[in-house]
């Protein structure tokens, strides 16, 4: 098509500059498919990028990119990238009772899920209610596995050798310290050294108050508990990863890719500063911090984000937190494909979306990745859908050649320009949040919430007007039904879970439970680190609701605020 529109004469000499090229082809460049081209975060996109724009932006190879495994870390922490080791492919799963979750984990591991066990928790567990609490009615085991006491945890891992698992992750946020205590107790009972299987908990309550919604304590208390857990793990389980500061939920709630990166870093600053205030040194814990993001559909923005985040965070560690070692700068960068762009309409289209997202996070150099399943818009993933996502990763890994060159997009004029723009935009938002008094002030003032709400509405309107195309939803719809088997939860699972809990309550030593809960109450009141007391509680099979109730009693509870629009 393009060649037929070219003039029928000998080619002119090549343009000698970008303005020259733009002027020479002005007529053709004006014939665009869209009135304006912008990235999903709203950055203007030029038709083409050249060394001239990079020069204008002040880009410098050594300062801004350099070599893999070296500062400024834009190209990754590992010199050989995926030539040394492929990314870890982790699958998030969990539903029903401990036994059902246990079966699914065994299946995923047998299929080549190399990222260990990633536990989805049901909502009552996440907000600190026992499975038989009135607020838990109808929600037990619905969107994740119900864990109420050490007994459930023991059954989830029944017959699974921890050293074979290698890595355990869970989205435990406000309840992070309780889940951490369960696992410390489990390892102790089994005699498993903490280094044999790395535990990683999300333990990032701040974003819950603006996006994910499992907060149940005042935010200051939640940050204190998070800090307790980080501090305790440094001595009790130094190999574990006690926090994963997460941007993905904020993006799924409406943040742009830039805001996702910047807000996550601002929240990360708050946790680090909370640790530093206790006298901890960044050189001792910088390497156990994780930043977690999700990858959506703007392919190049996502790649630029991962490159820019490595650059910005490592600079903060050096310049703001006083880190002096390389290790302190090497946080864990975790990426997950996003369930949000997946559509219920024509669900097999989601395999293409998942593959593109997985490719973007791999090109962004993420060492740990999680991949969604194509039927997620319809319910909990079926085994087939989960397996297909593992296969998508394996196809990229073993068939595409993508992992054979480190940071293959490094030096792309477009990607470098975008990476630089991301770095500057992120720095500017950090400055804004600092000026407000930090992330907690930003939450109290509704700054994040407004940004997310507006972003979500902007996108909804753009989809409704057709300005933003969602294939199969507002364009290219199809009447042909694509039958996809959906996952059916065993309706008896919740009842079995409640019965189990009642059995545990009946057979445990009630006096020991009360004594440890009383000790926890005193420790909470004293302001000391609560972790040792929580470990004592869980060993007596005190339940999550009992422990969380002590917190609620001492710290108070989160009160939802009505907002007038």
């Amino acid at each position: 098509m393009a060649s037929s529109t070219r003039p029928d004469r000998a080619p002119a000499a090549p343009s000698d500059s970008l303005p020259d090229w733009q002027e020479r082809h002005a007529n053709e460049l004006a014939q665009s498919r869209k009135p304006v081209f912008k990235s999903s975060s709203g950055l203007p996109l030029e038709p083409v990028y050249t060394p001239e724009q990079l020069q204008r932006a002040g880009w410098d190879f050594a300062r801004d990119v350099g070599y893999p495994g070296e500062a400024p870390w834009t190209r990754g922490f590992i010199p050989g990238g995926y030539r040394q080791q492929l990314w870890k492919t982790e699958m998030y799963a969990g539903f029903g009772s401990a036994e059902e979750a246990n079966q699914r984990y065994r299946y995923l591991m047998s299929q080549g899920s190399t990222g260990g066990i990633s536990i989805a928790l049901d909502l009552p567990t996440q907000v600190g209610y026992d499975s038989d609490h009135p607020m838990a009615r109808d929600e037990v085991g619905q969107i994740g596995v119900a864990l109420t006491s050490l007994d459930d945890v023991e059954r989830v891992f029944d017959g699974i050798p921890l050293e074979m698992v290698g890595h355990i992750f869970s989205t435990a946020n406000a309840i992070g310290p309780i889940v951490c205590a369960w696992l410390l107790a489990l390892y102790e009972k089994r005699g498993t050294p903490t280094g044999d299987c790395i535990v990683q908990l999300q333990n990032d309550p701040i974003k819950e108050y603006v996006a994910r919604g499992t907060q149940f304590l005042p935010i200051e208390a939640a940050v204190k508990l998070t800090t307790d857990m980080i501090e305790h793990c440094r001595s009790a389980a130094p190999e574990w990863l006690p926090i994963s500061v997460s941007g993905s939920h904020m993006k799924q709630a409406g943040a742009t890719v830039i805001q996702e990166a910047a807000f996550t870093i601002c929240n990360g600053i708050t946790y680090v500063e909370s640790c530093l205030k206790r006298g901890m040194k960044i050189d001792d814990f910088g390497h156990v911090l994780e930043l977690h993001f999700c990858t959506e559909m703007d392919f190049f923005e996502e790649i630029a984000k991962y490159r820019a985040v490595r650059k910005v965070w490592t600079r903060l560690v050096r310049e703001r937190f006083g880190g002096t070692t390389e290790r302190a700068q090497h946080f864990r960068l975790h990426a997950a494909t996003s369930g949000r762009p997946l559509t219920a309409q024509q669900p097999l289209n989601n395999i293409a979306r998942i593959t593109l997202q997985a490719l973007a996070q791999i090109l962004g150099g993420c060492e740990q990745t999680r991949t969604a399943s194509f039927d997620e818009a319809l319910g909990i993933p079926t085994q087939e859908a989960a397996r297909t996502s593992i296969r998508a990763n394996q196809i990229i890994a073993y068939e595409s050649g993508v992992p054979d060159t480190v940071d293959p997009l490094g030096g792309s004029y477009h990607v470098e320009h975008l990476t630089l723009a991301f770095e500057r935009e992120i720095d500017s938002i950090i400055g804004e949040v600092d000026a407000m008094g930090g992330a907690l002030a930003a939450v109290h003032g509704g700054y994040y919430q407004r940004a997310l709400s507006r972003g979500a509405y902007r996108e909804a309107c753009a989809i409704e007007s057709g300005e933003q195309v969602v294939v199969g939803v507002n364009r290219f719809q199809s009447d042909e039904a694509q039958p996809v088997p959906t996952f059916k939860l065993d309706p008896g699972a919740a009842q079995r879970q409640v019965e189990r809990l009642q059995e545990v309550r009946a057979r445990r030593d009630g006096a020991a439970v009360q004594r440890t809960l009383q000790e926890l109450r005193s420790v909470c009141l004293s302001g000391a680190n609560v972790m040792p007391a929580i470990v004592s509680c869980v060993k007596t099979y005190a339940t999550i609701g009992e422990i969380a109730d002590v917190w609620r009693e001492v710290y108070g509870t989160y009160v939802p605020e009505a907002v007038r629009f």
Partner: protein
Amino acid sequence: MGSPNDDLARQAATPAHGRPIRVVLTKVGLDGHDRGVRVIAQALRDAGMEVIYAGLRRTPEDIARIVLEEDADVLGLSILSGAVVPLTRRVQEALRVHEVEDVVLVVGGIVPEPAREELRGIGVEGVFTPGTSLTAIVDFIRASVPAQRSYGASGA
């Protein structure tokens, strides 16, 4: 800055009974994902309605009280967990106990087909699942409210 949705902004609400339609939106149950309900809040606002988003994890009793206090014409429940029918039923019971009878009840979220029928059976007037257009929701609420109000008045 104007509304990002010109269509909605153009159709400014004609206030029925001398005041704008008042809508209480809330999450019920433990699910904390409120992107959808916040989008709806802004769409209804841009259509000229007064919108109160009550926030997360409200109990049925809380909800009935807020609806009364705000004298709401419409109550919108946002539920993304699997428990949409039992949670809605409990809210209906609380409304009945508090003698709130003239509020238009709508539900938004992930609602499988059989649950949709059940919800209609317990008096839910509108069920909006992902992909429903904002304009359709605005139109539905506009159309439902005046009728409900006059019904309430004649029945009193």
